[in-house]
């Protein structure tokens, strides 16, 4: 029995492809399946074509499939435009409404089996029936999903539209399922039912921030990061915090830094072009030792690039953006599910180490909907060292301590007034040009990050083998899936998934790669940014290879497996 199933609902604007996909995924979740839904849309701001790419499976799904099993075209107006993003082959099934005209040539060219199904006619036969719901039913039938789950999913999703709408949708779905029954289902292996969460990476980052204790967020909208702020805006108030819409990215990060100085765990959220504008103030946070979480959701660059597609090309900037030496912590979630705990951890680290901490996500995490196990909360939050017993002249804001973290009282504490300053300073924080203070400060700021015990945060190892693949962020999923497949065909591959990118966990990496005969660093950018970083940090053996290629197309497991095999 198959363990996963991949289906695309596609159509022109307003046809409801995304709703169909979302309902399909939620229905599957009710049966215990995990899944992933990638949304595609055209160049138009609104009203253009749309497609929902859904994969479901018995275990967590973290990569787009090599090939889709099924494509249901709600119409043919624009589906062809998506062809490069919807791989099909001779084993694929395309359902098409004869009333919608001839299938797109690019789709026909894939060799997929094209079967006609009168979607619009079926929809018309049901009162209030819509084509996308017929397609949903058809898809569910092909995946072997019971109609009861579709029921439940629609009832949940459409509750606000009233019972009648739910009933109509369901009737249409059932009609679609019935009509498709003749094609026969290749049912999925049953899954373990249980509590599941439905969320996107952007939402999960928001949740992680709240869990970590962030109570102030300031941002300027930018694709594909905006949803984080939009998700947080109403919820921040619910936890006693505040979300600010700034006039630009520079204002946003400075607001957040002001709030952080005021004692609140604070965050700013952006994507590449906005990150570029925050670079100066990140250096200030490092120099003045102010906690700050900076979330960067990568899109295709450089410059405006392709705002709606994914890439991992901001790593260089996140690692090295700031004039002068300003050490920082960079974390990248290993999956959408990991977005919450990684962000939560980022807040703890920023607070504990009084430093800027990056959460490096990307479009394919941020805007993809997924069904996952409820993410665990991190144990033992780390808090800001705010209290000091010293006052007056005895209070040195940057006093030397064994862990290089000095007490940092918030304004309001009598006798401990201090000035946060981006100038080189002595341990009172007073500006000084003296080399001894300057070098002591650089040493302190580097040491506090270098000597901290990050524990499990550094990353994860999956599997064992003499071939080791190193990856981060949204590349981890396809790499893991490629390794799994190669494992099935007898080739053992170890996956070293890095969550802590800076300070580079060189010891953990060295240990993980100790016995590897081959090491390949896989990443989705043009210049091998992670590869270069690890070379620079002497974290790779001399024979390590780089597999780097840019977005906008996602890595698929097959592409990686082919390279490795």
């Amino acid at each position, binding site marked *: 029995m198959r363990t996963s199933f991949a289906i695309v609902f596609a159509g022109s604007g307003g046809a409801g492809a995304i709703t169909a996909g979302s309902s399909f995924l*939620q229905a599957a*979740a*009710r049966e215990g399946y995990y899944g992933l839904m990638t949304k595609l849309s055209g160049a138009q701001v609104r009203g253009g074509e749309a497609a929902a790419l859904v994969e479901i499976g018995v275990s967590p799904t973290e990569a787009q499939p090599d090939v889709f099993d099924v494509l249901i075209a709600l119409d043919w107006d624009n589906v062809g435009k998506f062809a490069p993003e919807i791989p099909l082959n001779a084993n694929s099934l395309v359902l098409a409404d004869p009333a919608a005209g001839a299938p797109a040539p690019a789709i026909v060219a894939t060799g997929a089996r094209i079967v006609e199904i009168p979607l619009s006619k079926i929809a018309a036969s049901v009162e209030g029936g819509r084509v996308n719901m017929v397609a949903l039913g058809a898809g569910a039938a092909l995946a072997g999903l019971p109609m009861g789950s579709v029921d439940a999913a629609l009832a949940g999703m459409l509750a606000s539209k009233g019972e009648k709408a739910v009933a109509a949708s369901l009737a249409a779905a059932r009609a679609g399922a019935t009509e498709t029954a003749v094609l026969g289902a290749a049912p999925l292996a049953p899954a373990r*039912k*249980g*509590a*599941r*969460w*439905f*969320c996107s990476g952007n*939402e999960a980052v928001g*949740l992680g921030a*709240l869990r970590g204790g962030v*109570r*102030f967020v*300031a941002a300027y909208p930018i694709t594909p990061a905006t949803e984080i702020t939009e998700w947080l805006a109403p*919820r921040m*108030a*619910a*936890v*006693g*915090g*505040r979300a*600010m819409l*700034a*006039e630009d990215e520079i*204002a*946003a990060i*400075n*607001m*957040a*830094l*002001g*709030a*952080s*100085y*005021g*004692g*609140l765990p*604070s965050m700013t959220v952006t994507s590449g072009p906005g990150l570029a504008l925050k670079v*100066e*103030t990140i250096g*200030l946070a490092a120099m003045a030792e102010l906690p700050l979480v900076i979330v960067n959701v990568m899109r295709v660059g450089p410059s405006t690039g392709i705002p709606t597609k994914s890439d991992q090309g901001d790593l260089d900037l996140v690692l090295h953006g700031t004039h002068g030496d300003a050490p920082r912590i960079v974390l990248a979630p290993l999956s959408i599910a990991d977005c919450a705990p990684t962000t939560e951890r980022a807040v703890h680290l920023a607070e504990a180490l009084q430093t800027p901490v990056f959460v490096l996500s990307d479009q394919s995490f941020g805007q993809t909907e997924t*069904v996952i196990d*409820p993410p665990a909360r991190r144990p033992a939050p780390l808090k800001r060292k705010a209290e000091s017993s010293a006052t007056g002249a005895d209070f040195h804001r940057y006093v030397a301590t064994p862990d290089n973290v000095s007490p940092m009282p*918030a*304004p*309001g*504490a*009598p*006798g*401990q*007034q*201090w*000035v*946060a*300053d*981006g100038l080189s300073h002595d341990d009172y924080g*007073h*500006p000084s040009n003296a080399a001894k203070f300057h070098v002591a400060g650089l040493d302190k700021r580097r040491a506090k990050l270098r000597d901290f015990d990050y524990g499990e945060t550094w990353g994860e190892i999956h599997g064992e083998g003499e071939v080791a693949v190193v990856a981060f962020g949204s590349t981890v999923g396809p790499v893991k899936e490629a390794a799994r497949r190669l494992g099935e065909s007898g080739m053992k591959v170890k996956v070293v998934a890095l969550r802590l990118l800076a300070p580079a966990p060189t010891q953990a990496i060295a240990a993980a790669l100790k016995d590897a005969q081959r090491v390949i660093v896989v990443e989705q950018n043009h210049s091998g940014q992670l590869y270069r970083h690890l070379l620079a940090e002497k974290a790779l053996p001399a024979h390590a290879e780089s597999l780097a290629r840019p977005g906008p197309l996602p890595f698929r497991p097959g592409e990686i497996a082919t390279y490795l095999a």
Partner: protein
Amino acid sequence: MSIHETAAPACHQPLTLKDFKSGVEPIWCPGCGDFGVLQSLQRALAAHGRPPHEVALVSGIGCSSRLPAYTSAYGFHGVHGRALPVAAGLKLARPDLEVIVVGGDGDGYSIGGNHFLHACRRNVNLTYIVMDNRVYGMTKGQPSPTTEADWDSDIAPGGSGVQPFSPLAIALAAGANFVARGFALDVKPLADILVAAIRHPGFSFVEVLSPCITFRPEEMEWKKAVQRGALSVNTDRAAAMAMALSVNELASGIIFQGDRPAYSETLPAPTGLAAIEKEFELNAA
């Protein structure tokens, strides 16, 4: 700490200028107008009555922006031009603090111009003091947005050829809730303006003529030329604007006190994280 847990302002205490002095020696040139502003501010804070640890001074970069370290209050000496957003974040995170922003004409009107516009509009309860010497002092004498078009300098020989703009008119157009102009060496009157600005709700803007003795020694003439009291309090923005456009740029006094409600500092009662987590649940176990 959450926004709701912050302590209520302590009750006012009898304070003197000395309570607001720090031990750090100013790097300012002897005779710089900024000494006058520092003194006026220390006086005003003493008069206002909140102790130094409940006050935070925020600044950018420039000679004038060095001021926070010279007082005994909390301070934030950030990057060039970004003091206003820092202050907005701080004030909204900690409404219990008295937050005052200081800086120069370059910092505030040149690189920081956008934040100035939006601070006026946003109307967070801050006081913003610009020490306007019509020059970039710290970088040794280049024309700023308030410098006369024909002022000769190395970087703009013969003058920039660009007409200065009126910070008062901009502040009024952008929505500032309190607008005034003072003179650095009129310490007592300036302190009075500052107290009024600090106590006025919303965003209060005080432009201070503060001579740069080193790069604009001719500004010492301001001692005579300032038109004291030529500005008078308007409560109607259009009337204030008409006045701003008609008086000369050395007129001092309070020109506008408005009644726009300040950016809200109150938040709804928090309901907690649990309900938020629930939103993600598909099949509750």
